[in-house]
């Protein structure tokens, strides 16, 4: 299995975004090149119930198009303000139908006050089967 590299400045952006929006879930798009996250763009969470659902707004989709146009592989991130950094049944149902096999970065803030945020990487296939990707924080 390949190791996904996440540069620290982007990881910091991710944590900042998740914390700022608490208790809402946040979401955004990632651009990857050769298994390394090179871009992280916030999307507005347009869900009617953002504490328990997330969905991109049109600007978010435009960012997806933009990163694709730049030749980057698309990844998606979202936060779990209170639960484990693991795809929920809802996440699996949605992603298996829409973005199967796409890299999913998930940040959980469930223990943020004590042990800090947790970030994990997954892919969800068309059958909703989740596989864990190794994730490494790298400098710059």
């Amino acid at each position, binding site marked *: 299995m390949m190791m996904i590299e996440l540069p620290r400045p982007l990881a910091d952006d991710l944590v900042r975004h998740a914390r700022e929006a608490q*208790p809402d*879930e946040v*979401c955004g*798009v990632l651009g990857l090149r050769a298994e390394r996250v090179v871009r992280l763009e916030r*999307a507005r969470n347009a*869900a009617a*119930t953002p*504490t*328990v*659902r*997330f*969905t*991109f707004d*049109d600007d*978010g*989709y*435009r960012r*997806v*198009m933009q990163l*694709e*146009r730049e030749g980057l*592989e*698309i990844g*998606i991130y*979202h936060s*779990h*303000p*209170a*639960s484990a950094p693991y*795809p*929920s*049944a*809802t*996440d699996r149902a*949605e*992603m298996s*139908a*829409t*973005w*199967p*096999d*796409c890299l999913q970065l998930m940040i959980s803030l*469930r223990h943020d006050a004590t042990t800090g945020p947790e970030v994990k990487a997954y892919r969800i296939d068309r059958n909703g089967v989740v596989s864990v990707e190794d994730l490494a924080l790298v400098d710059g």
Partner: protein
Amino acid sequence: MVASVTVGETMTAKVYIPTPFRSLTEKQARVEVHSGTVGGALDELAARFPGLRERLRDAQGALHGYVNVYVNSQPIDDLQGEGTALKDGDEVSIIPAVAGGDIFTEEQVKRYSRHLLLADVGPLGQRKLMNARVLLIGAGGLGSPAALYLAAAGVGTLGIVDFDVVDHSNLQRQILHQTDDIGKLKVESAKESIGAMNPNVNVEAHNMILDSTNALELFKQYDIIVNGVDNFPARYLANDAAVMLGKTMVDAGINQFEGMVSVYQPGQGCYRCLYPAPPPPGAVQSCAEAGVLGVLPGIVGSVQALETIKLILGIGEPLIGKLLLFDALTMEFRTLRTRRDPACPVCGDHPTITALIDYHEFCGIPQPPELVEQRAAEEDSHVREAEPVAVGAS
């Protein structure tokens, strides 16, 4: 379906294919189309690449709700939908929705929306409620409002223990049961009412008399015990069993126009710390003997539900080390401080009662006839060391 308009070979638009669809387009990220409308362009693609149609449209031919289409970065919903005309050089982008969310179903999000809005509950708290297991002792006057409010709040599992059947005289206050339920087992009637109120709740019906032989086994399976018994032997039994297992108990009692509620948490006192011995037999009349104002258990049982929810969520100050007294006639609530008694025979520093005892003998009360029956039925299966205790409904 939108008819395509042919504008000749000069018209060439590009369709951007998202990553998840590229396995169907021979890995191409951009495909040229010549149809004059968005709908036509999508059909042109579907005709060329097998399998793509199902990814774009449902069985009725409508675009899937999770497929977003843009023309030059404008969502087609803001244009003319699939009828949007394409000009030479336009770029059509197909982007599957990016969405997900919590374990809550849409139904649960709506049902619990007022909880989800509260900072002290929110999704985390709601999940705690949904994961909680609460045992209600008695499906009567106190158990009824407690069960209904706990169910409405979304407590995941409610155990209910009662041996009684619904009687006409229960209906004046036991709001779990309806007139049609007369003669039904209370636990069955309770299960139906709770199911109608909130089908998300898992109800575990225990149609039995709580006694010294089964109390520990039953209590073990739950996080919090809500006590709605109406007699002293059962009250002492429930107290002792909860202390021995280290379970928190939300206790209550009612009498005519007065009620009391307290929360006994392990290490912070118990019912015996306040009342080491039962009153002499006959000194305190039961509801059946003395009567009770019907709405009184409604208020007191609702306070029990509230305290239980606070304990599950870990918010506020539950009535731990406190005794709430309610006088329905003067409409006064008073709170007294209570203390753990280091000499308490069950929760004190040197407990003398370390196993469940004979609670009828302890209270000087003869066994009700139902117990004799249950005992006879159980006699064959095992030998008991202690007498059973009736759990009736207040």
